[in-house]
Every structure is written in structure tokens, then in C-alpha cells.
């Protein structure tokens, strides 16, 4: 076995009383694409930040090519051959791409070369960063990291925000890096990618490395088991069982009816119905109008035409307030957009209540507290970080965004990709929560970018293509059928 390119030994880090890393041994060999896996809050991001000089470690050592190094700044980490692409783009929004490159001391010619290698040389580097769509910012970040010609490329959830064709280009890079006998540390929640493209994986749990193995051998179940520990296996089948229990009663009035809703200026509109107690899945490729549809339904944007009926009455929302008053609420995929990150959990849950509890006059604190506590218990939110919502892990934040509406008693939920960037264990908790809400009588419209979620959570699925519903299928529809429809093609046998 060759000497490791990167070796961490007993790396530990604590933020005040919260221990993020308890002692991680990680070894990345040259010519290896190494996956770093773990549930949300397991310590992946902290480890990446230590390896790239953003955070200092409390104890333990990091060695590159056998030599211990002291990574005290991002610049120092880069000069040791470790170049990161962070989860959030590290480009300054108010500067042009060129100015950003100068800031980091990167040769623009090298970046252009890397972009050309990814078939992206059409990108204009004179453009201000804020005008460039997110997926291309990730690609620019990647090209910038590559321009340093690093020994080890660290990719922190780079594919989470990328459409499949751009993801493929990322994997072309990782393969090329491997062929050059260099290495990649790859973080992703998409286990299929990990199985397909990674040679090794290390799983973190509660700040420790718990397993290292070839991800292709054990398959997803081994990864999930390592990530979640013993409690994992039982979780997975619960949602599926519950799925079977639901049966549609015939004479129910639909909770939400959408008729010929024009998402953009086009001829065909969107029409669908959702009953109380039903979860309607919504599947689509990137950019088929799903964002706008959800914004219209939640009163954020006005439709060009068509109508929305809630409980049989038309809803003409000019503002989210109007929709919320009628009980129609949106859970966006960007969790921090929906929450008050600096405020305590209690207030975050209580905020939607204010719409109902009291229009004028003081708020009844006692009643507020009761409802909030009920919600926290039902959601099994870890309340150790109760003082500020932003300190919760991503999964707990998402539970909070969904759960606060629950506490307020809203009955029509619009969930937009609620499990994006969330680990497998919490995903299943969220599936359970969604089903529970539906069983309790809520009508739910769920857009998801992960097709297999549809079979797990939904009662029906509508496929959106180019701003119109092109097909409705049972949740048991195969992924092939869903994808065919999502591309706007006829599905032969449903």
C-alpha cells in the first residue's frame, strides 16, 4: 500500500460545550477518490474546514505526504496542495469573476483552461458573480480549485446543486485526477454517486470515524448502517408500511383544486386536485416551472391566469399572508429562508401562530408555550441548541420548518424538495412526518428531485414538463416511466 497523501490522526474539535469531532483518523491514498460520509451533524463539514485551514483543530495531527502540516489559513492549505470547493460558493457576489480570481491569486488563463476542459468556456469571466446561476458558480469554484493544480481536491456536496449533466462533468474531473495519481475527497448524500465513483469511503458518526471500506462492495445498506448505527434498519420500512394503509374515500371534497394555472405566458396550464389526507407528488426535471408553481400557490408570485380553489372557495393571493390565512403554507427548500435563524426554536414555531392566535392585543404566552411544546415533542427535535435555530443541524432545521406549520394547525402544505441536503436517517424521519401529517388530514403537495421518494411518501404523482402537467401516475410507477414523462415523452404502459 502506498504512503497516504493525506493522513489525519485523532483530529478533534469542540465549539464550546458542543463536541464536533472526537478523534478522526482519515487516510486518503494517492490516486483515490475517497468519499466522506455521515449523517448531518456527524462532523463532515468541520473536518473539511480543518483540512482547508478555515478552522484550527484542538488536538490531533494532519499530515500531507507523511509530513505533519499546520494549516492555519486557507492560503496555507492551498500551498500544501489541498484545494476545496465548499458547500456554499466562496465567490464574492459583488465582484466580477475575474476580480475574484485576482483576489485568490489565481491565473485567469489557468481557470479558462480548466473551464474549457469542462466544456464551459462560454462562461464570461467579466460577469458579476451575482448574475451567474448557482450551478455555474459551483463549476467556477471547481475550475478555480483545479487551477491550483492541487494534490487533493476536496468537494463538499458539490453535486447537491448541480443538474445531472454538470455532475457528470465533475465526475470526469475526479476520474482524471485519479488517473494523474492525485486524490479527491468527495462528500455527498447521494449514495448512488458514491457507489459509482468512489474507491473508498470513510463514514463519520458523532465526530468519530466508524468505518472505512470500498463503497461498491457492501452497497447502500452497509453505508446506511454505518452512518446511523443500530437504530437504522428499523426506520426504513416504516414509511412503506404506512403507505399501504391509505385508501382514498370517494366522496371527499378536494382541499386544493388548481385549474389551468398559467405558470408563464403559455397556452397549457397546470391543473390538479389534492384531497385532505393525500400526498400528491410532483416530479420534474430542473427548470420546468416547479419553482414558480410553488411560489404562485403560496401567494409569493401572481399567476398569469387560471384559478386556485381552497376548500371550494377561490384563492386570489396577492401576498403570502393571504394564502396563509386560507391555510396554504409553503416549506421552501432553503431552510434558512423560512426560519428566523437567530431566534429560539420556540419563537420560530410560534411565529406562524401569530396569524391565528391574536390579530390585535397581547399574545397569550401560556397557550403559545403549550402548542410549541406539543410540536417539539411530536417532531422529536433535538432541543439542546434551543437558543438559536441556526445552530440546529440541517435535518432538525427542516423538521422545524415543517413542524411549525403543524403546530399552527395549517392544513394545506406545499413542500418544495424538503429533503435536499439531508442525511438518510433524517430523510426517513421527514417521510414519517409527512405521512403522519397527511393521516391527520392535511393535504400535501410535495415536489421532490429524488424520484425514489415518490414511492415512499406519495399517494399519486403528477409529472410537470415545460410548465404543464403531462402525466399522472400511481406512486408505484417505475423511475423509467417517470423520467420518460418528465422529458415530455409518451409513456407507453402505465
Amino acid at each position: 500500500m502506498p504512503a497516504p497523501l493525506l493522513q489525519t490522526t485523532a483530529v478533534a474539535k469542540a465549539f464550546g460545550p458542543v463536541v464536533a469531532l472526537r478523534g478522526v483518523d482519515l487516510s486518503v491514498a494517492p490516486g483515490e477518490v475517497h468519499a466522506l460520509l455521515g449523517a448531518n451533524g456527524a462532523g463532515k463539514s468541520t473536518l473539511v474546514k480543518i483540512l482547508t485551514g478555515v478552522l484550527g483543530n484542538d488536538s490531533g495531527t494532519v499530515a500531507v505526504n507523511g509530513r505533519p502540516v499546520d494549516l492555519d489559513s486557507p492560503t496555507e492549505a492551498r500551498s500544501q496542495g489541498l484545494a476545496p470547493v465548499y458547500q456554499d460558493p466562496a465567490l464574492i457576489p459583488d465582484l466580477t469573476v475575474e476580480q475574484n480570481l485576482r483576489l485568490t491569486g489565481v491565473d485567469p488563463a489557468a481557470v479558462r483552461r480548466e473551464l474549457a476542459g469542462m466544456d464551459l468556456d462560454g462562461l464570461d469571466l467579466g460577469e458579476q458573480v451575482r448574475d451567474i446561476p448557482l450551478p455555474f458558480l459551483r463549476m467556477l469554484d471547481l475550475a478555480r480549485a483545479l487551477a491550483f493544480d492541487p494534490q487533493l481536491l476536496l468537494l463538499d456536496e458539490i453535486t447537491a446543486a448541480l443538474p445531472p449533466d454538470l455532475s457528470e462533468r465533475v465526475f470526469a474531473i475526479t476520474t482524471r485526477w485519479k488517473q494523474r495519481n492525485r486524490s479527491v475527497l468527495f462528500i455527498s448524500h447521494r449514495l448512488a454517486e458514491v457507489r459509482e465513483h468512489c474507491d473508498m469511503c470513510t463514514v463519520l458518526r458523532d465526530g468519530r470515524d466508524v468505518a472505512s471500506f470500498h463503497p461498491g462492495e457492501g452497497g447502500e445498506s452497509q453505508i446506511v448502517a454505518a452512518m446511523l448505527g443500530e437504530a437504522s434498519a428499523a426506520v426504513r420500512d416504516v414509511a412503506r408500511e404506512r403507505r399501504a394503509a391509505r385508501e382514498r374515500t370517494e366522496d371527499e371534497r378536494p382541499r386544493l383544486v388548481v385549474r389551468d394555472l398559467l405558470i408563464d405566458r403559455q397556452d397549457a396550464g397546470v391543473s390538479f386536485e389534492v384531497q385532505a389526507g393525500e400526498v400528491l407528488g410532483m416530479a420534474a426535471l430542473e427548470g420546468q416551472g416547479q419553482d414558480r408553481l410553488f411560489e404562485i400557490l403560496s401567494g409569493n408570485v401572481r399567476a398569469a391566469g387560471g384559478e386556485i380553489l381552497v376548500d371550494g372557495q377561490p384563492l386570489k393571493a396577492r401576498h403570502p399572508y393571504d394564502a396563509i390565512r386560507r391555510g396554504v403554507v409553503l416549506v421552501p427548500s432553503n431552510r434558512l429562508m423560512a426560519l428566523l435563524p437567530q431566534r429560539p426554536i420556540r419563537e420560530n414555531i410560534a411565529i406562524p401562530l401569530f396569524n391565528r392566535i391574536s390579530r390585535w392585543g397581547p399574545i397569550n404566552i401560556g397557550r403559545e408555550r403549550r402548542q410549541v411544546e406539543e410540536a417539539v415533542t411530536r417532531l422529536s427535535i433535538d432541543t439542546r441548541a434551543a437558543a438559536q435555530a441556526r445552530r440546529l443541524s440541517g435535518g432538525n432545521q427542516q423538521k422545524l420548518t415543517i413542524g411549525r406549520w403543524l403546530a399552527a394547525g395549517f392544513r394545506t402544505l406545499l413542500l418544495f424538495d424538503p429533503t435536499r441536503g439531508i442525511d438518510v436517517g433524517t430523510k426517513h424521519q421527514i417521510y414519517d412526518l409527512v405521512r403522519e401529517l397527511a393521516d391527520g388530514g392535511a393535504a400535501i403537495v410535495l415536489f421532490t428531485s429524488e424520484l425514489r421518494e415518490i414511492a415512499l411518501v406519495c399517494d399519486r404523482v403528477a409529472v410537470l414538463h415545460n410548465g404543464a402537467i403531462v402525466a399522472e401516475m400511481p406512486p408505484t410507477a417505475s423511475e423509467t416511466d417517470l423520467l420518460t414523462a418528465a422529458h415530455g415523452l409518451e409513456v407507453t404502459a402505465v
Partner: protein
Amino acid sequence: MSTAPRAVAATPLPRPSSRANRFRRRQGWVVGVAVLLGVLVFWRYSQIPAFGPFEIRGIVAGTMTLALLAMAQSVIVISGGIDLSVGAMMVLANCIAARLMLDQDLGTVVLVAIGVVAVAMILSGLIGLVTVVSGVPDIVVTLAASFILAGLALVVLDGPGGGTNPRFQELIVGGFDQPLPSLLWLAGLLALVWLPFKRSRLGIATYAVGSDRAAAFLSGVRVGRTRVIAYVLGGFFSGMAGVVTTAFTGSGEPRASIGATATLTSVAAVVLGGVALMGGSGTLLGPVLAAFCLSLIPALMLGLGWDPNYAEVARGIIIIVVVMIGGLVQVPRRSR
């Protein structure tokens, strides 16, 4: 599990923005303020029968202090901070300069001027350092600093007084009908201090720190140092403002209210000049032009025969209206 779905359609590249669009986004505001200034100057020109070098000199020399303070404030706002002590810093510099320059020959006076600017840079740098190191919000530190500086100014000069060399006055603000010296000073500072700074890596880092501190850190920018340097450069401009005040008035005036008013007007010039208070965008030319607009308005109102007290009301309304129009023109927002 089936295999991961492959996309059929390639994600299209974003369409690059047009040249005109880019110009509008980046320079539009400055052009707008320049046009506004042109209109105001023309208006003033039509008000006064004999509009000539004397009038122009009066406007330029009289606005120079405010223009310099606007530059000081802009640099700090661009770096993501705010400085409520620029006015007090100007008053202190004015008092030190007036006290030391009294009855001195030109050489000494110039040396004093350089020294005073250096002191302002050091003091402002210290204020920046305290902000960065202590983590106390800049608005609090600089507000407190404004009291300290105003107090020091009274220690240096306990009442209006001091003086300077008349040749120094001519050198800085020109004779009674010579607008050129003050114009050249302003243009020179913009061209020889600000532009090279803006184009340097340090300048880009200043914008970066104001735009997104975390991303700047990840890009390898030394965030704390950059912020302190922005305060040092701000101190340079507010020190210059003090020296110019000394040259313009030929004396020192330690009244604290002068500093407070000047600080607030500098913030107004920054906003009117298109520098986002959030930091990270804008340039110094806009606030300088805006400073001229702001100081022309009272003169225009006077020319119309209005009560001067209404001039302040008009000034406030103009700031709000201009910024509103600018916001509508520059950033087509989503309807809400």
C-alpha cells in the same frame, strides 16, 4: 435500486449580459448623479446674473470638506463598516492644524498638514482596530470615538481660533476667483489615491470583505487587516478634510455640532452617491458628486427666495426620492 437517472438535455450556459446592461448596472448610478449635478449647476447658473469663476470657486472650495468626508465614509462603508466619527475627526484635525499653523511659514505649514493627516490615519486605524479586535459593532465604537475626538478637539483649541499661512490657503482652495486648485486636489486624490487603490489586490479585498466576509476569508483575504486598512484610508480622507477646512476658513473651530452634522451629511452623500450601505459596491466618484448636489441645494433654495429652513426639508426629500428612483431603475425587483 435502479441506476441514477441521466439527463438528456444539457443545461444551457447562462446568457452573458449585454455591454449596455453592464454599464447601466455598474456606472449607471454615477452617471445619474452627474446628470443631477449638471441640472443643479445649470439652475444655479440661471439664477445668478454673473455666474463666473468666483461663483464656481465658492461652490467647489465650500464643498471640498464635505466631498472629502464623503470619500472617507465611502471607503469604510464599501468595506462593510460605517464610521460615525469622520466629522469629529475632521474637527480635531482642523483644530490641531489651526493651532500649529498659526503664524508659521509655508514649509512648516505643509509639514504640519502632512503630520495632521498622519495623526488622523493613525487614530482612525486605531478605531478600526478596536472594532475588529473587540467585535463590538462599528456603529457603537465609532459613535463613542466621535465623543472622544470631539473632546480632544476642545482640549487642543478651547474656542474658535488659530490660523494658517495665506499662501497655504491659496495652494489648497485657491484665491477668490480661482476654482482650479480645489478641483485639482479633488480630482488628484480620486485619480492618484483612490483609483490605484481600487485596482490593487487590497482594493479588491476591501470590496470583497464588504460584500461577503465569509467568502472573502475563504478566498484567502485577511479580513481583519483589510477592514483596519479601510479605516486608515478613511482617516486619510477625513484628516485631509480637516486640513482643507483650516485652509478654507483660515482658523480652527472646535464646536462638536459641526462634526456631528458633517458625519450625517457624509452618510447622506454616500447613499445618494450609490454606495450600498450593506457594503461591497459603489465607488468614490458618486459620493463626491453627491456631496456637490447636497451643498448646492441650500444655495438654490436661497436663490428662489425660500426660507433657508425649508432647504433642509428639501434636501431630505431629494435624498429619499433620488435613492428611490435609483433603486427602481437599477435593480428591477420582483413584484411583491
